[in-house]
């Protein structure tokens, strides 16, 4: 009987207390309102398009990170895996003259392979995700440096920088990469809500043991999540390459914590099983809004770091309190 109860609750659509959903939205609206009063150049479609461009790499990494955090895991390797993917793509295309599309696919596969390794170590060897990804983060960093000889790759073929180019609607220029990022969010939002595997991700994060007892292959769900996350890091590689126009071996060094910050700001619980993926996009945008707004005000970016810290604590506290309330 208890099993059926767990099954139905584990299998149902995730329900969230409104505060966790609304929190990031309120923070964003307040920040936007504040900066709008401080700078007359802040409130424009073009500026928001710019902010989206600036967060598209972290935002895309945050999709993969959200999936993993929903299973009560964490991924420290994401930024370094992204950097490795970018080096593989650019070096193969420029250095080896491989067809750019093929080079992109190889880069994606490398990132997914890292996801596979992370997933296998978590599910088969039963290692904690934190330690596993700490290890693979360092491995990915070292391989990136060795493979690239610490050299930046330039003169990329246009296929690789497509997502960095823009199209105009009216007077505002939009960037293809940001559109792609938003589509990826929409896709995963639908996938997590409406599909069986999506709901299994929440179930595994909520209560892995109960989920396993209902006959769901939890290890397979976890493995799938890590590989899929790797794929998103690979797509982030492509966006990063497109945005900067180079393959940069020193990229990605702060992206792991930046992505975790975005996920947490977005209201996803670090304990797993609760959260809405669109929140992570809001989380990434909030950080971008503060960086942009403070620069427009002429204020040091250290305050952005300070405010981000305060918001993270607020978000986690909200999550903790609402968990208590739910019991």
């Amino acid at each position, binding site marked *: 009987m208890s099993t059926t109860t767990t099954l139905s609750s584990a299998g149902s659509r995730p329900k969230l207390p409104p505060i966790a959903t609304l929190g990031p939205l309120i923070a964003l609206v307040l920040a936007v309102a504040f900066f709008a009063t401080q700078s007359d*150049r802040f409130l424009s479609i073009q500026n928001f398009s710019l902010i989206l461009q600036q967060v598209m790499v972290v935002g895309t990494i945050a999709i993969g990170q959200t999936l993993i955090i929903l299973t009560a895991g964490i991924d420290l390797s994401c*930024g370094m895996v992204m950097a490795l993917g970018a080096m593989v793509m650019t070096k193969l295309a420029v250095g080896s003259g491989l067809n750019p599309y093929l080079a992109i696919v190889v880069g994606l596969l490398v990132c997914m392979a890292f996801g596979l390794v992370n997933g296998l170590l978590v599910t088969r060897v039963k290692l904690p995700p934190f330690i596993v990804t700490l290890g693979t983060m*360092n491995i990915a*960093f070292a391989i990136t440096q060795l493979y690239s000889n610490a050299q930046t790759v330039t003169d990329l073929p246009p296929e690789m920088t497509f997502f960095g180019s823009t199209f105009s609607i009216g007077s505002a220029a939009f960037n293809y990469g940001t559109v792609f990022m938003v589509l990826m969010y929409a896709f995963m939002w639908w996938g997590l809500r409406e599909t069986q595997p999506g709901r299994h991700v929440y179930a595994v994060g909520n209560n892995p043991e109960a989920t396993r007892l209902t006959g769901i292959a939890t290890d397979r769900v976890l493995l799938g999540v890590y590989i899929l996350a790797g794929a998103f890091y690979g797509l982030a590689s492509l966006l990063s390459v497109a945005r900067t126009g180079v393959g940069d071996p020193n990229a990605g060094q*702060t992206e*792991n914590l930046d992505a975790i910050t975005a996920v947490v700001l977005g209201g996803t619980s670090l304990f797993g099983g609760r959260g809405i993926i669109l929140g992570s996009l809001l989380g990434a945008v909030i950080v971008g809004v503060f*960086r942009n707004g403070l620069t427009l005000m002429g204020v040091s*970016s250290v305050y952005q*770091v300070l405010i981000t*810290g305060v918001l993270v604590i607020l978000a986690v506290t909200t999550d903790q309190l609402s968990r208590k309330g739910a019991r």
Partner: protein
Amino acid sequence: MTLTISRTCLALSTIALAALSSAAVAADQPVIGLITKTDTNPFFVKMKEGAQSAATAKGAKLLSAAGKADGDNAGQVTAIENMIAGGAKTILITPNDSKAIVPAIKKAQGQGVMFIALDSPADPADATDALFATNNYTAGELIGRYAKAAMGGKPAKIATLDLFPGHPVGAQRHNGFMKGFGLQAPDSKINELGKSAEIVCSADSFGDQAKGQTAMENCLQKNPDINLVYTINEPAAAGAFQALKNAGKEKGVMIVSVDGGCAGVKNVKAGMIAATSQQYPLKMASMGVDAGVEFAKTGKKVSGYTDTGVTLITDKPMSGVDSKDTKVGMDLCWGNK
């Protein structure tokens, strides 16, 4: 903040102690230690290269090590201890933390070790026996004077893409640039960024290309009429160029920078950067090794500050401002050509 934390996580990936493997040292062979900030930055790779070739030429043995990440003091302290155990009598060091390294230096000096700071000083500067470094204020002044001449009296709207708050090198280059441009500027001892009406936007780039791009985009949003960009280094300059290009403004805006890495000189040649102040890590290191060998032979220590020089590299020279072209710059640059 996140920068520091994740770089610390990186710690495991880079090996702090290197080159201490061969313990057997010929009794009379001078042993010289080189401790750089990190071992991934091409600047320090070049420095190590210079030290190694000078050591080979002079028959000295070079031990080298690096901090695990930019800012890692503990790793450098460990390296000092290990190098003394390895028989080093001269240690060349680029301090990661100018103040925190001082007690370890003092302790080692008590054991008769000579210290030469390379590239950046300890704090106080006289904590090391000598300092071989670029004058960062002069480096800034050169590009400031160049920019002033190149603007030709056109009113300047300047963006500065700085390092990060509180770093002396960031302040010296920024303030030197202002002085060279003829603006009211703090002197070389002040560790704060100077302000002026001509500087319409200042943002931190962390010396990183992607962050430099973001900073430039935000500055253009603040003031679309920016026509001159000062950048702390060439990766930041490359980021600034990308932002200008995306905004369709790369033609009308001049970028000046500091460093003289090969990638940067290439960008000068390509016209992305108008001029850069080139510095010479190889020279710092080879001078350091020479001083170490001299000390081992004669017991004579070096002292004080030696300016290792800086040259303005540009393909569009301005009268009244000394410069060399990118061909010279490429010959002397650091990093892969």
